[in-house]
Structures are given as structure tokens and as C-alpha cells.
């Protein structure tokens, strides 16, 4: 198992996440896809940490998890508020602002 496989896997996960953002309607799911992208990055970081034999990668991964957690808090707050107003979490319903 060379590191390339890990990197490729991470890249695939990242792409899946990105595509998910594009195709899914539910805000929660979209957000989860973003989380997936972040975690694929974590994988990449760990891999590089291993390959370069440095520790930063692992540290950064921890940081990323913390930040992601914070993002979840904020994000869910926003999504909840709009959900309670509109009774819908579909991102396609929020397009009053355009052009």
C-alpha cells in the first residue's frame, strides 16, 4: 500500500463531497457533504504527515476537526432558523435573491 492510494482515496472522497454539494437539495445533506470534503482533507493530511515524517499534519487534522465542529454549530443554527420559518430545508427554496 503506497501512500498514493491514500491520496487517491482522499481525492475521491473530496470529489464525492463536492459533487454531493452540487446535487443534493437538503441543506443538512449539503452540509454533510462539505464535512466529507473536510475529512477527506484530514485523510490527506495524515497521509502526508506519514510520508514526510512530520507531525504537523496530524496536528492540523485535529485543528480541522475542531473548526469543523464550530462550523457545524453555526451552520445548524442558521439552517434551523430558516427551516423553522419556511418549514423546508431545501436549498432550492431559498432563491429570493437573484440576478
Amino acid at each position, binding site marked *: 500500500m503506497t501512500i498514493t492510494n491514500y491520496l487517491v482515496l482522499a481525492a475521491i472522497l473530496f470529489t464525492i463531497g463536492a459533487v454531493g*454539494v*452540487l446535487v443534493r437539495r437538503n441543506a443538512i445533506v*449539503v452540509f454533510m457533504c462539505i464535512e466529507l470534503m473536510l475529512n477527506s482533507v484530514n485523510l490527506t493530511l495524515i497521509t502526508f504527515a506519514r510520508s514526510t515524517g512530520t507531525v504537523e499534519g496530524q496536528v492540523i487534522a485535529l485543528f480541522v476537526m475542531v473548526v469543523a465542529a464550530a462550523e457545524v454549530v453555526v451552520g445548524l443554527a442558521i439552517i434551523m432558523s430558516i427551516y423553522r420559518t419556511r418549514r423546508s430545508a431545501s436549498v432550492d427554496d431559498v*432563491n429570493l*435573491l*437573484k440576478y
Partner: protein
Amino acid sequence: MNEVVPASVPVDGLLSVTWLVIVLPLAGAALLLLGGRRTDRWGHLLATGTVVAAFALAVACTVALTERAGRAVSLDLFTFIETGSLDVTAGLLLDPLSAVFVLLITGVGALIHVYSIGYMAHDPGRRRFFAYLNLFVAAMLLLVLGNSYVALYVGWEGVGLASYLLIAFWHTRPAAATAAKKAFLMNRVGDVGLALAIFLMFAQLGTTSYAGVFGSVGLLAGGTVTAIGLLLLLGACGKSGQFPLQAWLPDAMEGPTPVSALIHAATMVTAGVYLIARSAPLYDATPTARTVVLAVGAVTLLIGAIAGCAHDDIKKVLAYSTVSQIGYMFLAVGLGPVGYAAAIAHLLAHGFFKAGLFLGAGSVMHAMDDSVDMRRFGGLARRLPITFVTFGLGYLALIGFPFLSGWWTKDAIIEVALDRGGWSGWVLGGVAVLGAGLTAFYMTRLMLMTFFGTPRWEDGVHPHEAPPSMTAPMVLLAVGSVAAGFLLVAVFPLSGWLEPVFGEPEEAAHLVSPLVVSIVVTVVVALGALTAWLYVGRREVPTTAPVRVSPVVTAARRGLYADTVNESLVMRPGMWLTRALVWLDARGVDGAVNGAAAALGGGSARLGRVQTGFVRSYALGILGGAVLVAGALLAVTA
């Protein structure tokens, strides 16, 4: 040919105030125009006074001139324009040639001012009329007195303006207004030629003064001289109503009759002749240009004469006669040194009798309630005796009745034309003789229709002789018409007086003896007159022009289609072009600008559609951007 270069004798005494000759009438004009209604009562008297004074001064100056070496004085007044290598000094040149013209202008001008006092007595715009008349005299004097082509040009355009103002004097008449515009524009066309000639002189010689230019004609390439000559000719044609720019002159008769007499018969229209005569040193150096002058003269001579035969408007007939007579003068100056003196002589004689004829015509109109239709005249001889006599004398002088002015001066021209020899000599001579015959025809026709036969007047017309203020000038001019030729050719030969300008008049060996010439001419003239009598003298003249006539007559009535040609070749295409350009400017040039703006707006609106408001499409945009960026960077590195 440097005689015109003034002797550097300090100018003093009377001659040093020659400029007063110009300033007097100018001041008159200014006073009348600025003075406003205050000057209504005495304005015309003042105007006349200034011109008379100018005439007196001119006589005095001319006398003083005779005592001077070289008979020329050049006065530098002030620096007009000086920059770079261009140095135009406002200055005057009084020499035999200009002196002759100054006398003619002020003299005839004074007479016509006097005449106008009576003629315009009841016109509300009298003050304005006299102001313009003075303005004209001033400009015309500047034209002939200037000592450089620029000065001449200034006067040249000045008389154009005065002519415009006077033709349009009764400007509420559309015809008058249009005629004035036409005159100005066709003159302007000629002015382009004159202007370009001046530019060419400056470009080649770095000067525009007569002295400078004539002093170095020899240094010019032949082609250049010819070009200058032709350009000057263009200017001359415009001003003198010569072919192909003759069409404005007949229309100019819309102006008051004194104007027609002074400007469009005696003085302004002869400016072209003056220009060419003045530029003698140039023309002497270019036979080509001179030949063209000859051709123009000959053609115009005939056109004028032919058109004159068919018109019923007394003033138009006289106008075409003027065109034709000036054609004679062009013919003469075109012949070169031998012809200059003859041309000037004819010019002066013509000035007298044609002015006289116009004043007579004016008197007739005065009697006939301003009607100009000869078909409604007839039998006026008894009602207007003085007019009849003076007009008659002018008529005889014009057709060249033996021993009257016309006979002396016209025959002289025909002689020099024949003396040219070769086929061209015969052709030109023949044309001149033919012209004489036609002149006799149309003038006799005019006489008969106006003064003889049975009255064909409109109802309520009661012809009466004009007041003395009008008849007096007519008498004086009649005297001039009788005597001028004899005096100028036989007693004080003009050629001698002009010798400092044109050089020694060489006595050419006549190919045809003058006697024969004058006999032939007289016979032809008699024939012409007879024909006229056969046509209009014997039978009743219909009060309306016959409609069914030969194409020749139609052509003649339409002035040989000069207007038609101008319209179809210049006016209409011009109007089309203008309309097309207006469209192009609005739709094309400005349209392009507005179109670009509209395109931007449209693009903006279309591009704005991308901003759908859907989060996911925005995300797609970002992703796409990211891919592009990544791709671009990899492309750069790879």
C-alpha cells in the same frame, strides 16, 4: 516686366492719403448702419457726398500721379499678418491701371448714388440701401487699390458681400433672397480658385504682394505659372459671370436697378478682367492659361448673346448682354499684351453705356410700375423722351454704331483677335463679329419692343418721365457712352496711359486692315438690327411669350440650360449626399455608439441570468472556477 514694382520715391502730399478714397465711403456705410433711424432723413445725402468726395480725391490723385516717375505709388499702411515666413502688409498701389478703375468706380458710383436718391425716394429701407452701396464702393476700391493679392482677395469677398446684401435688398421676396444666395455661392466657388492661387504663390515664392510675385515670375516652373493662371481665371469667372459660372448674373437682376447698373454692369463684374489684366506678368509667362482665357471669353460671348436674344425681361436681356460684353473683354485680355489696353478701353466704355442702359431700364420700370416684361411695354418713346434719347444713345454705343464708344473699343478687340492670325485668329475674330451681330439683334429687339410699336401696357399704368435726380445721371452717362470710345482710343490713347503697366504697345502688322474690319462689322451689325426689325418691328408683339417655339429659342430662354446643368450635376446630388450623410451620422456613427451601449446592456442582462439565486449553481460556479484555476496552473508549470 517689373514696371509695377513701385519706384521707391517717398510718397508725400496728396498721394499719401490715397487711403482716404476707400475710407470715405466706408465711413459713410458705418455711420449709416450704426446711426440707425436717426440718419434716415439725411443718410442718403451723406452717402452720396462721400462718394462724390472720393471721386474728387481720385481725380486729384490721378493728376498727381501723372507727375510721378513710373506713374506708380505704393503705400504701406500697417502690418496685417506677420508670422513665420508669411508677411502680409496692408498696402495700396496706385498706378495707371488702378487709377482708371478708381475713376470709373467713384465716377459711375457717384452718378448712380445721385440716381438712387430719386429711385429709392419712397423705399422704407433707403438708408440701408445707401449704406450697402457705400460699402460696395469701399470694397471695390480696396479690390483695385490693394498692392497684394491678399488685399485684392479681401476686397474681392467684400464686393461679394455687398452684392449679396443688395441683391437681397428686398429680402421678403423669396426670389431675391435665393438669387442673392446663388450669387454668393457661385462667387465663392470662384474664390476657392483665387485663394488656391494665392496659396500657390506663397508656397513657391513666399510672398503675395504684386511686387514680390511679379518680380520673380521668371523663377517659377512653367507648370506652376499655368496652374496659378488657371486658378486665377476660375476666380475671375466667378466674379465676372463667365462660363461656366455665369448663371448667377441674370438672377442677380432681382436687386434694385441701380444695383444692377453699378455692380452687375459697370464695376464689380469687371473685376475679373481687372484681375487678369493686373496679373499680366503671370499670364505673359503662360500661353496655355491665356488660351483658356480666350476660350472662356469666346464661349461666354456667344452664350450671353444667344440667351439675350430670347428673353422678354428687359433687365435679363441687359444682364446677358453684360455677360456677353465681358466675354469680349476676356477675349481681349486673353490675347495678351496687344489686348490688355483694348480690354480696359472696352471695359470703361461698357461701364458708361451699360450703366446708362440700366438706369434707363430703371426709369422705364419706374414708369411702368416696376414691370420688367417688355411684352407689356411699347410706344414709350413719346412718353419718356429723355429716357428714350439717353437709352437710345447707349443702345447705339453698345451695338457699335460708327463713331460711338462701342464702335471704337469693340472693333479694336476684333482687330487684335484677327491679328492673332492662324485658324484660331479667324475663329476668334469670327466669333467676335458674330457676337456683334447678335448684340445688334437683341438690343434692337429690346428697343423696338420697349419704345416703338403700339402700347401694350397693363391697365392703370400711366407712364411718366422720371425726376431730374434720375434723368441727370442718365444724360451724363449718355454723353459718356457717345464720347468715351473716341476719347480713349483716339484722343488720349489708353494704351499710352497704361504703358507703365503693360509695357510698350507694339503696333502689330494688321493681317486685315482696320477699315475692312469695321466695314464688315458694321454690315453684320446692320444685318442683326434688320433681322430684329423683321421679327418684332413689323408685326404686333404678342403680350404673352409664344409657347410653341423652336428648341433653339427654348434653349436660349433657359440660358442655354446653365441652371439645369448646375441643378442636375451639383444641387440634387449634393442634396442626396447631404441626406445620406445625415442618415449615416445618426444611424451609422452615432448608431454604432448607441449600439455598443445597447450591446453592453443586453450582455449584462443575459450574463445576469447566470446569477440564478440557487446555491447549488453558485457552488458549481466555484467548483468550475477552481478546476479552471488548477488546470491553468498545471498548464503553466507543465
